[in-house]
Each structure stands twice: as C-alpha cells, then as structure tokens.
C-alpha cells in the first residue's frame, strides 16, 4: 500500500511527534467570523497542528465544510481536516469535492459515514449512502495514488495530495468488531484514526491495546467540559459516551461554588490535571496524539498541552 505524508498533520505523525488537533464547527450561516476566531485561538496555542471542520454534524445542515475549511485555512493559517460524509453525496459528487479540496490546497480529509438524515434538521431528505466510509477512503486513496476514481476514470493533470483519516469508535462493542472494521480501512489506505470523545482513560487504553495490531496511528478524542451541565450533557445525551461517575461528582461539586471566577478557575485546574494524566497514559499506550473537541473553551487547552509535552 503506497503511502505518503502530504499534510503537516501526517508529516508530524510520520515523524512520531505526539500531535494535537482541534475542532471547528461552522453553522448554518455564511458568516465564519466566530469559527475563524476559534481557529486563530487554536493556532496561537502553537502546538495544535490542525483542526477538523465538521460536515453537517448530526445531520444539522451547515455551510459546506469544503468551503469553510478552505476559507479558514486561508485566513488563519491553521491546517484544516476537511470532514466529508457520504450521507449527502454520491460517488460523483464526492469525486468533485475531493478534486475541489485538492485544488484548494486542503491536505486532510476525515472520511465519515455521517449520522442518518432522519436524526437531523432535515429528516425528510433522501439519505444518499451511495458509498460507505470505507469506500470513501478507497476512493480518495485511488484518486491520490492512482489518479483514478472507483470506475477507473482518469484524473487529468496533477492528482490531489490528501491524507485520509477515519473515525474510531472507542465504545464499539465488541471491540473485536471494531478491529475488523479498521483492518478493512487500513487495507484501503486510512492514514490516521480520530476517535470520538472519551472520558474514561481505561476505555481509551483498552481501545489502543485492541487496535494496535491494525497499525493505523490513533488520535484519542477528548472533551474538557467547561461546566457541569456540559459534562452531564455528554453523559446523558451523546450516544456511546460514558462519563465516569467520579468525574461527574467532581464537576457537580465544583458547580456548587458560588463565586463565578473561582468556579471557572477550579474547573480549569481540574480539567488540566485530569487530562494531563489522561493524555500521558494514552501516550504511553502508543496513541499518536489527541483530538481536542471542546469548541470555544480555550482556558485549559494550552496548559494541558504544556503539561504533556512541555512548553
């Protein structure tokens, strides 16, 4: 399987540097000011190599992630991971968008199945699912390395230079099933895995141990919550995410601090301590990096990264 590192992210992973990626969530709007501000914040932290730009997350319609990723990368200098779902596009449209991404200088795609259209803002839409996520990885790999689409049609001129990631299901049950799935994706050329958010370090370690044999570098997703309500939201409403009881209890206690500034500081400190230990542990287990998913809550990010890899 031919493989090259085109993006900064892939190059750092290849060089065995422990990497950090962030998350950007553009909305149903043509105004990207806020998202770009967050991208700039991430960029200024210094150690965040790239950030994912979500594509109709939870099947809520939003501005094209291709356009958003391009504009953010151009205007902030932060490398983007263009998220691309097969929910909304058939293989023809996917080829167009991958070529578009190549032409716009985007170097990473996260290939996703995506939530079903019925769960989002537009439940009456026709779900496409012409390909699945593994087929999308296959398509991208063939375009990049063979200069052809799935039907063998040739790309004229230079090929897109793109590394492709896939989502990892920390909570997949049984994990054996997840391992087989990832083996297929390795076979068609996945360069890296980014997992969903995980709070329990034991689960992250269990996952890393299980997927080790697949050999795809894995970034573990974390989400430092800014409040008890946010932690609770994860525990209660995000399918497949388990927030450990002690974590919730600690957040509950902190939420009872009446002085706002003190409370904020305490929560930040707690996040830093908790996630520094967490990341050190997953790093020991061979994780390639961490995908920090918290959007708009910069306070703990720099100290967490510093705590792990120093200034």
């Amino acid at each position, binding site marked *: 399987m031919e493989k090259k590192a085109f993006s900064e992210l892939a190059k750092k992973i290849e060089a065995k540097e422990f990497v950090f990626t962030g998350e950007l969530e553009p909305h149903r709007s043509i105004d990207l000011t806020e998202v770009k501000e967050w991208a700039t914040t991430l960029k200024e932290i210094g150690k965040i190599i790239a950030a994912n730009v979500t594509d109709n997350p939870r099947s809520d319609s939003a501005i094209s992630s291709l356009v958003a990723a391009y504009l953010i990368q151009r205007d902030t200098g932060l490398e983007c991971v263009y998220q691309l779902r097969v*929910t909304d596009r058939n*293989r023809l449209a996917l080829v167009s968008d991958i070529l578009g991404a190549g032409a716009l200088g985007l170097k990473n795609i996260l290939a996703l*199945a995506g*939530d*079903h259209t*019925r*769960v989002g803002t537009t439940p009456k839409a026709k*779900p496409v*699912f*012409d*390909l*699945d*996520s*593994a*087929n999308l990885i*296959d398509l991208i790999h063939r375009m990049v390395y063979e200069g052809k689409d*799935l039907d063998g049609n040739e790309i004229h001129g230079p090929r897109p230079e793109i590394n492709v990631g896939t*989502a990892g*299901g920390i*909570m*997949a*049950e049984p994990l054996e*099933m997840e391992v*087989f*799935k990832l*083996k*297929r*994706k390795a*076979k*068609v050329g996945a360069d890296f895995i980014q997992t*969903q958010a995980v709070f329990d370090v034991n689960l992250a370690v269990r996952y890393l141990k299980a997927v080790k044999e697949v050999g795809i570098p894995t970034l573990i997703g974390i989400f430092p919550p800014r409040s008890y309500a946010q932690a609770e939201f994860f525990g209660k409403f995000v*399918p*497949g995410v388990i927030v450990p009881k002690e974590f919730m209890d600690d957040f509950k206690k902190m939420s009872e601090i009446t002085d706002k500034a003190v409370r904020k500081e305490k929560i930040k400190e707690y996040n830093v301590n908790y996630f520094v230990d967490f990341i050190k542990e997953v790093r020991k287990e061979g994780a390639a990096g961490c995908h920090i998913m918290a959007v708009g809550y910069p306070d703990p990010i720099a100290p967490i990264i510093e705590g792990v890899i120093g200034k």
Partner: protein
Amino acid sequence: MIITKEKPIEEIYGFLEPFGSVLVVGCDSCTQPPRGLREAETYASLMEMAARVKGKEIKCEAITVVRQCCSEGVKEWIKPDGHEVILSMACGIGVQVLNEVFPEIPAFPAQNTVFVGWEEKREGIMYENCRACGDCLLGETGGICPRTRCAKGMMNGPCGGCIDGKCEIPVQLRNWRGEVVEEIKQDCGWYLIFNRLKAMKRLDLFEKYREPTDYSIWTNPRRI
C-alpha cells in the same frame, strides 16, 4: 410477484464446497420463473456434478415448500436434520428466513433477487429485508442482508451509530395508510452479521473489504 435470476454455478458451488450434505429447498410461491421442486432437483444434480468435476463429493437432497417467506411455516415444513448446509432456491427473503429459523445450518442463495412486484395481500407486520438488488450478497453476510437491514445500506459496516447492537435509527412501523404507528429500536444489521459470521466461524468474510453497491441496476422504472 418476485423475479429471481440464477447465480453463476461457480458462485453457488463456492458456497457449498466446504460441506458434504446439502438440502436444496425450492419455493412454490411467487418466485418467477418457478423455483419449485423441479428446479431444486436440477440444482441438486448440478451441484453434485460440479463437485465431481473437482474430484469431490457432495450429497444433495431436493425438497420444496409452499413458501419460504414465512418463519412459522418454514419451521413446520422443513426438517433439515442430517444436512450441513441449505441451498435456497427462493428470493432474498427466503434465504434470510432459513438462516433465522435454522441458525445452526447456514443457508445460501442460489438466486439473485432482481425484482419485487406488487402484491395485494394484507397480513400482519411485513419486514422488508430484501430490496431485490439483483446482486445477492447473503452468501457472504451470514444470510443477513446489509442492503436492507442496515439503515445506511453500508457494505462495510457497522457505522459508529451501532450502540449496544442497536441501530441509531429506529424502524418506523407504518400502517397501510403509510402513517407511523410506532418507532421501534431495531438491531443493527451489521451487528447481526458480525455475530452470525462469528458463530459460523467465518469472520474472514467480515474482515473482507466490499466494493460499493452497483446502483445502475436500480434505475427506475424497471422492466423484466
């Protein structure tokens, strides 16, 4: 009415090769052209011949049933004891029913189901489970159809929406006027496939990467 088309002999023989004793089950119901006893017998001798050509031996017994799309009936009509494998002459539904009713004996499709016509009969709940895709995969997926039992029709599932073996999309039970009567949590089709292939000791089939579905066959209106 359901139209089916024979799979290539090589493909069918490939399913049966590891086994010694085959029960070939015809279906006297709506399949067109007919796939009843006579056709089951033809396939039984074809398979024995295919084995002989390869210097092997398999024994085939041919029977037929009124219809394979009814779990209750199949349980009563078919006694597969003594056979290691079933070859179904029926549509994609029949194959799945056999796999569910006799989980210890794998059932494989002899047909590609290409077309499901209009039927007016109205009885109880109907499970779709086969969309007559014309390129039947059941032989590779443990007799469980990913094209219909996976909400996203994934070829390489499950997706991340499979939590505790259930699909992120509940199935909508509709009445005959098309109104949603109830939303029911359903099993993830790929989770079922994984467990079935595991029980069959065929996880190699689960690991296999599958090319996307050929949707050119689905262009409507179709004619046969």
